């Protein structure tokens, strides 16, 4: 019976990263202690992580811990989606499309979302960013992208 969800899941994450590191590092040369190859240090770290993961998992069955608590799935999904969408469309459609999309999608995550202030915010931020980042600092992003004939 798992008595500490936090310990159990964190332990599994550590085990996952530790085991992957060791397995992937097998493709690189290990070298010797005096002349360490690219696999040497990652293998040590992976081993340590596996040990820590095992301890955490064992402890999760023995020592009771606080519950993890509900995940804010709405916020997690909307905020992440908003950022990913921005990345996907910014080169093609340009900042005038990508930036309002980022603002609106992420703002939807709030329980106090209202259209009017969000749209005003999106418009204001777009103008500000075009002026400061593209015109001012010369960041190579299109204002209106090739998808829109810009």
């Amino acid at each position: 019976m798992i008595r500490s969800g936090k310990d159990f899941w964190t332990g599994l994450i550590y085990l996952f990263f530790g085991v992957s590191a060791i397995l992937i590092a097998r493709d690189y040369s290990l070298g010797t202690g005096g002349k360490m190859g690219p696999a040497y240090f990652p293998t040590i770290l992976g081993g340590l992580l596996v040990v820590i993961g095992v301890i955490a998992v064992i402890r999760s069955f023995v020592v009771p811990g606080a519950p993890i608590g509900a995940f804010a799935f709405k916020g997690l999904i909307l905020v992440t989606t908003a950022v990913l969408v921005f990345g996907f469309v910014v080169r093609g459609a340009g900042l005038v499309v990508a930036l309002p999309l980022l603002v609106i999608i992420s703002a939807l995550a709030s329980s106090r979302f209202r259209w009017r202030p969000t749209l005003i915010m999106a418009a204001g931020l777009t103008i500000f960013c075009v002026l400061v980042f593209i015109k001012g600092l010369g960041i190579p992003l299109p204002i209106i992208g090739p998808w829109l004939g810009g």
Partner: protein
Amino acid sequence: MELLSHLLLGLQTAATPANLFYCFVGVFLGTAIGVLPGLGPTATIAMLLPVTFVLPPVSALIMLAGIYYGSQYGGSTTSILVNLPGEAASVVTTLDGYQMAKQGRAGAALAASAIGSFFAGTVATFLIAGFGPPLAAVALQFGPAEFFSLMVLGLVASVVLAQGSLLHAIGMVVLGLLLGLIGTDVNSGTQRFTFGIYDLADGIGFVTVAMGMFGLGEIIRNLENEEERSVMVTKITGLWPTREDFKRMVAPILRGTIIGSALGILPGSGSILGSFAAYSIEKKISKNRAQFGKGAIEGVAAPESANNAGAQTSFIPLLTLGIPSNPVSALMVGAMIIHGIQPGPSVINEQPSLFWGMIVSMWIGNLFLVVLNYPLIGMWVRMIMIPYQLLYPGILVFCAIGVFSLKNTEADIYFMALFGVLGYVFSKLGCEPAPMLLAFILGPLMEEYLRRAMLLSRGDPTVFLRRPISATLLALAVLAMCTVLIPAFSKTREEAFVESSS
């Protein structure tokens, strides 16, 4: 009078109109983000780092440092006026500061905070100036074994001072070291853990990781419970403390400065711990201890001095050893590397104007803070009124554009999103991201020093124990680890974090 001539050199660097301007911009922005809850200095510095690439290195570092200690200061203003700590380090200030404000003594509380911070800042500036050169001179004797052991000590200390389970903090450090190794291995040219992805060949940028874990992760967490922020702004009256107030402030400010300076040097959450420790010590020894929690001026002066002193002395290991002690100074290390400066003990000799200029600018910045804050209090209070649902989409915009501009590639935007998710998941699991970011930056350096030390010793690992300085550093690391296991200490550690997170 070598110290004076050094400080004069620093003054010449820091007092140029351009650098004064960047110092001002830094502390101004810092105060602003310190005032805004839900936006910390780590995320802000990560966001603004790309903007500073166009500046000369001295100006960039002066501005970044200003953001950091400015944010500590801004956090206390809101703690006192509206009971909202903008920064973790100013949580204890709310206890007595807000009570004073409710009694119509907001002015006296703000003055106590300003005077305490300024005094602590001045002392800390001299501490850096005094201890910096000898420490750097010692560090110049360090070989690879010593540097490796020093990093072990730094990481252990960050683990000891981290919040929550010790085991998970160690896990986060090891994971951070591992993630830091992604990219091309400098010795063999092997691409490690890149999965054939071109954008990973140079590794993941630390700014990307910081923005993801501290920027995005924090936003998602704040969306969990959007508490009603009905701000009841207290009227600011009695702007000047009475003679009695001054008398009561002196000793707490002195004690706070000492405690804060000492804890600030330690890696991890030094400045948070400093303000808590200073408060609880005052509470135990003060003549007016009955008043604590009901508006005692000592309860504002001591923690405020401590957190400002700590914010500044945390630059000592950064400037003299090149070892970052918290996420903010880790970002500064990154900034120095981007500007072509290898942080470490040689900075002080090779770039004296940078070293001393930064130190003097901290003192000037503190002066700005005192002068700035009184006339601008009204503006800061209005800034708190910005509702969070309008604030966070804006933060996301700056994060996204900022991270893109690092290498002009969308890949960093995706990596940032990934680390945002990771940061949120880890915070749900009770694992603190700060030690991980520290380890992430130190990962490649540690590997390099380990390799060199082992090469010199022909593969004999006892070299770390045979060299006296290295052995001492490792012994200190073991000692630090053991203190956590002592019940009295671990109880204090827990209390400190319970109080600061409630």
